[in-house]
């Protein structure tokens, strides 16, 4: 209970930081953090597959999208970019080592304890069954929305190329 409360407080704090921070880049990072914390909440509520979607798409893809928009609309000068590169190399020199150590540790842990989602272990109605057999209309809607997005972006860039 205390852990759940702590996670929820962290989620609200991440949301608050996202909104209140001045830098747009930090805002995008805060959004990714909020998504990652929401993923923890989802895993604790037995929503494993939705949690994986949330982590990969909302904590991974959407912040990258925001950062791309920020860099397209507020590009750095050459001097700022080179200063940033130097500072980044200086600050994060140990990062590759940490990533390798963490990766090896997690791989060893997953070999030692067989991690299987609770829904699969207990034989509950699976999300895949519901998605493919009961919610087919939703899937059709998702495909239509995906095509709408693709065509929307294509039209936006086509018009821009004509003008440019």
């Amino acid at each position: 209970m205390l852990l759940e409360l702590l996670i929820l407080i962290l989620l609200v704090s991440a949301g608050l930081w996202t909104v209140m921070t001045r830098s747009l880049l930090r805002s995008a990072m805060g959004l990714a953090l909020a998504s990652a914390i929401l993923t923890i909440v989802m895993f604790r509520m037995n929503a494993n597959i939705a949690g994986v979607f949330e982590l990969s798409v909302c904590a991974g893809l959407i912040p990258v999208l925001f950062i791309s928009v920020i860099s397209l609309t507020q590009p750095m000068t050459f001097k700022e970019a080179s200063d940033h590169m130097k500072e980044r190399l200086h600050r994060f020199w140990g990062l590759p080592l940490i990533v390798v150590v963490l990766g090896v540790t997690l791989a060893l842990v997953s070999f030692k304890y067989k991690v299987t989602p609770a829904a699969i272990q207990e034989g509950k109605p699976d999300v895949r069954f519901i998605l493919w057999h009961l919610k087919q209309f939703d899937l059709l809607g998702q495909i239509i929305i995906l095509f709408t997005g693709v065509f929307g972006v294509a039209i936006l860039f086509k018009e821009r190329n004509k003008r440019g």
Partner: protein
Amino acid sequence: MANAITVILLFIIGIYCILVSHNLIRVLIGLEILIKAVTLLVIFCGYQTQNTALAQALVITIIVIEVVMMTVAAGVVVGIHRQNNSLDARNIRKLKG
């Protein structure tokens, strides 16, 4: 109870961000926080009614819609910036053409 309060707080944060910000990217970020609140609410309802699988199917649909919406909105924001050289929502007064 704590989950419900978290949903309400996230909603308030998202609405505040949308209402107060003039920067279009910040408005999109506020919208994202609102969607996070909705996602948490759906998952929480699924957990309470012991129907997690259905809630997950709904959340997956929400995430797909969210990504497409954000991609198109990001394209529109970049287009507006190239047109007006500004991301201030107050500068967007001419919507024709």
